[in-house]
């Protein structure tokens, strides 16, 4: 395992999540470094979405402690936290009758609040986000009339406008075709490279995770089962432990590794 190059973004100490008698996430201790793309993978129900929701403060952990930038999560004010951490839920909700630009502008809420003025800075950040995500073409269309890939990009633009140092994305590619998946993940990766944004992203496809993430965390049954670089994770025996089926790993021409279920 490589040592984190920058100070820790999230630190978990025995964080866990239980609902009733069921444990969604067993006590988990882990450090997530800043400025990197970290992939969360695992089978359905492995606890990856739960973990992301804990980090995003969508749910409170039922035990243990989670710190963000050295401070416990509960200590952060609602808006102060939103200025630092942006979260994209698994299914982007219907937006009623909102135009792309209006949706992106909502990302400025943590900065101006319920009553503050929408300043020139806010406007500039919105335009920047639209330019960066290349969503100018749909900025004045209603979000609900966009295609799945376009809509996802507008949502990511909103997260960019939020100007947070950390993005938490729950399966941002689940509804997209392969070309749009590549496009979205490339965008996320370039955000990390150009702005130093820390990204934690839940991904279904281990090959996508291997290609776009610096670091992969694998969960199984609510426990951490493997963590490492893509190279370390995409290995037959590790994959077998993560997904519970035999996988073959092939080397691509470009130098990457591709995993395929063994049939």
């Amino acid at each position, binding site marked *: 395992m490589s040592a984190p190059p920058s100070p820790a973004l999230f630190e978990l100490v025995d964080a866990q999540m239980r*609902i*009733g008698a*069921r444990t*969604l996430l067993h006590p988990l201790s882990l450090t997530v470094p800043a400025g990197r793309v970290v992939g969360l993978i695992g089978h*359905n*129900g492995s606890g990856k*979405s739960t973990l992301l929701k804990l980090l*995003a*403060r*969508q749910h409170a952990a039922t035990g243990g402690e989670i710190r963000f930038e050295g401070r416990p999560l509960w200590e952060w004010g*609602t*808006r*102060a*936290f*939103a*200025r630092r*951490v*942006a*979260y*994209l*839920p698994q299914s982007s*909700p*219907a*937006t*009623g*009758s*909102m*135009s792309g630009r*209006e949706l992106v502008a*909502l*990302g400025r*809420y*943590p900065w101006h*609040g*319920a*009553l503050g003025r929408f300043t020139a800075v806010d406007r500039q950040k919105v335009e920047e986000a639209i330019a960066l995500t290349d969503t100018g073409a749909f900025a*004045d*269309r*209603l979000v*609900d*009339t966009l295609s799945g890939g376009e809509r996802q990009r507008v949502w990511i633009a909103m997260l960019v406008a*939020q100007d947070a140092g950390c993005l938490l994305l729950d399966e941002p590619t689940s509804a997209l075709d392969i070309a749009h998946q590549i496009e979205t993940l490339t965008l996320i990766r370039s955000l990390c490279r150009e702005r130093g944004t820390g990204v934690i992203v839940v991904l279904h496809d281990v090959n996508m995770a291997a290609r776009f993430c610096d670091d992969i965390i694998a969960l199984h049954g609510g426990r951490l089962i493997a963590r490492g670089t893509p190279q370390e994770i995409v290995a037959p025996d590790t994959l077998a432990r993560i997904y519970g089926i035999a996988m073959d790993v092939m080397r691509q021409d470009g130098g990457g590794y591709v995993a395929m279920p063994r049939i």
Partner: protein
Amino acid sequence: MADTPWARRRARAPSRLGAAALVLGFAAIGLAGTVANLAMLLPGGGWWAAIVRPDAGLPDQLLAAYSFAPRLVVSLLAGAALGLAGAILQQVLRNPIASPTTLGIESGANLALSAALIWMPGLLGFGREWVTLTGGLLTIAVVFLLSRRSGFAPLVVILAGMVAGLYCASLAALLALFESHYLAGLFLWGAGSLSLQGWEEPLFLAPRLGLAGLAAILLLRPLALLGMEDAQTRSLGLSVGMVRLAALLVAVALTAFVVASVGCIGFIGLAAPALARIAGARRIGPWMLASAATGAALLWATDQMVQVAAVISAQMIPTGAVTALFGAPLLLWIIPRLRLPPAAAGSLSVQLGQSVGRPGRRLLLLGGLLLLALTLSSLIGPTATGWSLALPGDPSSAWALRLPRALAALAGGTLLAVAGCVLQRLTRNPMASPEVMGVSAGAAGGLTVAIFLIAETSRLEQMLAASLGAFLALIVLLLAARVSKANPERIILAGIAIGALLDALVSVLMASGDPRAILLFNWMTGSTYGVDASTAGASLLAALVLLALLPLVRRWLGMLPLGEDTARALGVPLGAGRLLLLMIAAVATALATLLVGPLSFVGLVAPHAARLLGLRRPLSELYGAALIGAFILVTADFLGRTIAFPWQMPAGLVASMIGAPAFLWLLSRKQDLA
């Protein structure tokens, strides 16, 4: 992910024993009540002999034989018929919340009966069951026509049915208002009274219900196949259309006979099949039988309890209203346990035109329109000598009488529209509104309790009581929504249940014959008749203050429709924000309900109308809706004063006459876009 905790909770089999015990419990209550009532009636015993061979010289025995016993039989028959009708409707429509009540069949049949009673009593000579049957069939035909485009999506059918039912109830109320000498009797009928003299009713009901029951048995096999997809059914060689039509006819007939005989008895047809299903009756034959048995037990228990209560309180209480009184909480209990097809919600998502336009100009136009309506309404009106112009300054002119009413209507419309907008955005539900969600009914309930408990109520006390009622209704609703994970259909259903509960409470009080009931009735229909200048001024001021406060919450209103997760991720203080918005909605509804009654559909229609005009952003939608709502009610007030001059129709009722069809039109139109 498939295995979220709530998916698991729903997958867990609902407690069958609980439901079965509940049914047996109702039967036990019925039995105990019967014994208690007989013991009160005939303390000396010898009950059977008294009923079979009453001694004509003993009034107690005559009462037992010609009032108590037929009533018992009718309650069992009517309960079984409604339970069976509900089961058939649910099977035919593949809709677990279909019932004679929720499809508007009962109200439609009742309206037909009222209309015939007043205008064409000769029709009743052919048999009142034909009148109610026609009414019920017409209502269900309208409901189907409206929901056809959605492919009969369960919620669309139910919404169309509930609104059609409310519309019929409003019309019946209007009839009662004009023909007030029939008022008391109609009310008892409309609220489902089982008090009888003689064996005529059981003898009327038994053969007709028997016939319909026989038809149901013949339809059993084809009905079983209807539970599957149409294509599959057709491939099994069944004419889907014919079976469906025949089964619907049987269900409507069962309901119509009951309405013709004893009036509207709410919720039995919904609760009985649901209870039977939860109790574990899976196959159609046993399920229908169990539905009928459960319905009979429910109505039996209710009616016996009502009789016990009547003896204690010395007042006549309509049983039908009481079934709603406990049927509605039952519905609230059932809602989270129902399995609804997941696709239904999608068909209701609002899709709007592309028009972005300039909201400022549209708002200005709407404002001009409102001003024009206000001016016309207060300046001109019919008098005994024809239409006249009343100018301000002339002491004898009607100006001073008309303006306060118009202003009160304006304030009421504004407040309702704002409440509707806030609720729709808060609950992310395009069909939410104070009227549909029972908030108006909550306000009405609060006011009713205040009027009956406090001898002299001041305007302020009335307002407080109404606000409290509205707020309580909203809280109950949101708790129910929390249990059902904010599923829009379940929220609406919970709202309907709360509304029905409070309506039932009000009907029970009104049917009690208390003089205050007439006062309440006038107010319930939304009359602006009694509004004086100071009330109008205060209401207008309240509406203006509300409008001025709205910019403070505009950003929350913009973000809440995106869902809890997104709003929280953006740093919106969810708890405080929701509470504030709820309070705004509750106070606005309460104030409006005091002015224009709980019946109008302005809170539902105005926000949609605003969005149809291309006012999309929270603030322009709110102000646009406020102007539209005000316009509708000012116009309604004007129409109510002039149409039937010298009689006056209440503004709220006239608005619902406009608003309900508008809602139904919206409902059928929206499906095209979905």
